[in-house]
């Protein structure tokens, strides 16, 4: 029997190598194996024979673990392996990422030279900024996912279309719509990157959730890179200035190239570190959800008691747009890290408090905003702020409704996830509408 235990332990160690299987799954499989062995033993087989037959019946573990991976793609994002696999995989593909990063840097420098930035600030430069960088990110993923030629065209088409649309529109001088385009175009193109990221198909809801995870991790890596770059620049200035080097001129070159290249490098880091460390976005979410819930609940009470609701202006609506975006991010990243089968816990309740308070606050703001638009009429900025607010409001209201049903046991987490992944295109469409429809609607003012 001792021999049997060591054989089972070996088998277990082998099975545990598969990244999509966690400890519980291996426990479950081991339990199955032991059952099978016991039964075969009872039928008269020796220990060794029973072990061999049981392992054989379990089937090809590569196929099984692939099936697990398909079911639990979220787990590929975390390190769930024991000490057996301590050795970190060497991040591969760095050269490729570096080439794409360098290409983005070169393009942004060229555009900058043509624009005469930072001496001058031509608006076409700001408006097109994301078009100088994001095509390279899309191309990086298209190559990495080995897309078919047709999918390459589908990836490229929105970029070409966007480039044409935003550059043939005759914006007025100091145009509000032009600023709105500059703000919304990165969002639109960010969603375009989802297509190559998801391997040339937008249908899989699990892959959509993977893209959500990617954006969260990417953002964190980008901020870290920016911080590191900032420290490097400050030290460079401190060291070289006494030597008479004009650091400002150096920064003029380094900053845009770094900012553009960082986009690709951050994406590469997310891709290659995906299996190495616990994701950071969900950890930060865990940390901040209770704090935000507390702040929002207090704010809802204060606003309701003092009746501040009547005196909102447009700036406040923008603040609330930002607030709803943050709340949505908390909801999404918390969800992206959840084991789908775990039951509701206290974090879900706290999250619901945050969402409900945010909705209450927003309803107050929105009421006064609509009243003001009745008085003052629509402007591009007001329309954009209001539209974004509505898009977010509908999403969070749906999420709140479904999570109440989930928490009371009348619905499943799966439904809630579906709602979010189904809703994602709405954000893309709204941003696209602001870029394409809003400017002509307001006469490019």
């Amino acid at each position: 029997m001792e021999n049997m235990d060591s054989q089972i332990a070996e088998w277990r160690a082998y099975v545990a190598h598969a990244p999509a299987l966690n400890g519980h799954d291996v426990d479950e499989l081991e339990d199955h194996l032991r059952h099978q062995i016991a039964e075969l033993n009872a039928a008269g087989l020796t220990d060794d024979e029973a072990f061999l037959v049981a392992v054989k019946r379990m089937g090809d573990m590569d196929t099984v673990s692939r099936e697990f991976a398909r079911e639990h793609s979220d787990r590929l994002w975390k390190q769930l392996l024991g000490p057996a696999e301590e050795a970190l995989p060497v991040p591969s593909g760095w050269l490729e990422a570096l080439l794409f990063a360098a290409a983005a840097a070169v393009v942004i420098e060229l555009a900058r030279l043509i624009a005469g930035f930072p001496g001058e600030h031509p608006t076409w430069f700001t408006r097109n900024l994301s078009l100088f960088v994001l095509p390279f990110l899309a191309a990086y993923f298209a190559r990495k996912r080995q897309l078919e030629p047709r999918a390459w065209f589908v990836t490229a088409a929105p970029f070409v279309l966007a480039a044409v649309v935003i550059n043939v529109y005759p914006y007025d001088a100091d145009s509000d719509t032009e600023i709105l385009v500059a703000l919304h175009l990165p969002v639109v193109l960010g969603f375009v990157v989802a297509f190559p990221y998801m391997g040339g198909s937008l249908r899989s809801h699990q892959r959509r959730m993977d893209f959500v995870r990617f954006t969260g991790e990417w953002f964190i890596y980008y901020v870290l890179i920016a911080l590191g770059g900032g420290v490097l620049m400050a030290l460079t200035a401190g060291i070289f200035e006494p030597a008479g080097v004009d650091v400002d001129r150096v920064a003029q070159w380094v900053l845009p190239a770094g900012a553009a290249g960082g986009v690709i490098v951050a994406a590469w880091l997310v891709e290659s570190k995906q299996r190495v460390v616990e994701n950071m976005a969900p950890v930060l979410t865990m940390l901040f959800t209770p704090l935000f819930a507390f702040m929002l609940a207090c704010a809802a009470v204060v606003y309701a008691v003092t009746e501040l609701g009547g005196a909102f202006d447009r700036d406040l609506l923008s603040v609330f747009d930002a607030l709803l975006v943050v709340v949505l991010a908390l909801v999404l990243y918390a969800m992206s890290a959840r084991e789908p089968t775990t039951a509701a816990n206290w974090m879900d309740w706290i999250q619901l408090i945050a969402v409900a308070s945010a909705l209450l606050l927003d309803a107050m703001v929105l009421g006064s905003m609509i009243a003001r638009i009745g008085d003052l009429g629509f402007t591009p900025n007001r329309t954009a702020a209001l539209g974004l607010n509505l898009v977010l409001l509908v999403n969070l209201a749906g999420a709140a409704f479904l999570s109440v049903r989930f928490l009371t046991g009348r619905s499943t987490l799966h439904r809630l996830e579906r709602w979010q992944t189904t809703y994602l295109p709405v954000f893309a469409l709204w941003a696209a509408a602001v870029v394409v429809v809003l400017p002509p609607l307001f006469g490019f003012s």
Partner: protein
Amino acid sequence: MLAILSDGESYGYAILKRVRALSAGELEWSDGMLYPLLHRLGRLGYVTTEWRTPPEGRRRKYYVITDAGRAALAEHQRQWVAVTRALNDAWPGSGALLTALGEA
């Protein structure tokens, strides 16, 4: 699998034995493949899971069918009956098909 679980909660190995017995060995796939399938039912909310330690032995994961699971099962049964009826009419001389299914 849902049909098996609708008879009462069960765990992996016992479910597999039922599958083997019910199909008289004709429906057989490698044992390991059972688990990703069970987990999928869990994600869709058709079953819930619970770890329990029976008095005599090892910790074991039990699967329990939910109301959503029963609803899905009923829907599948309805579809299968419809398919069987259609095939029954289309293939002359196989009148035993429906009888064998016991008009589910």
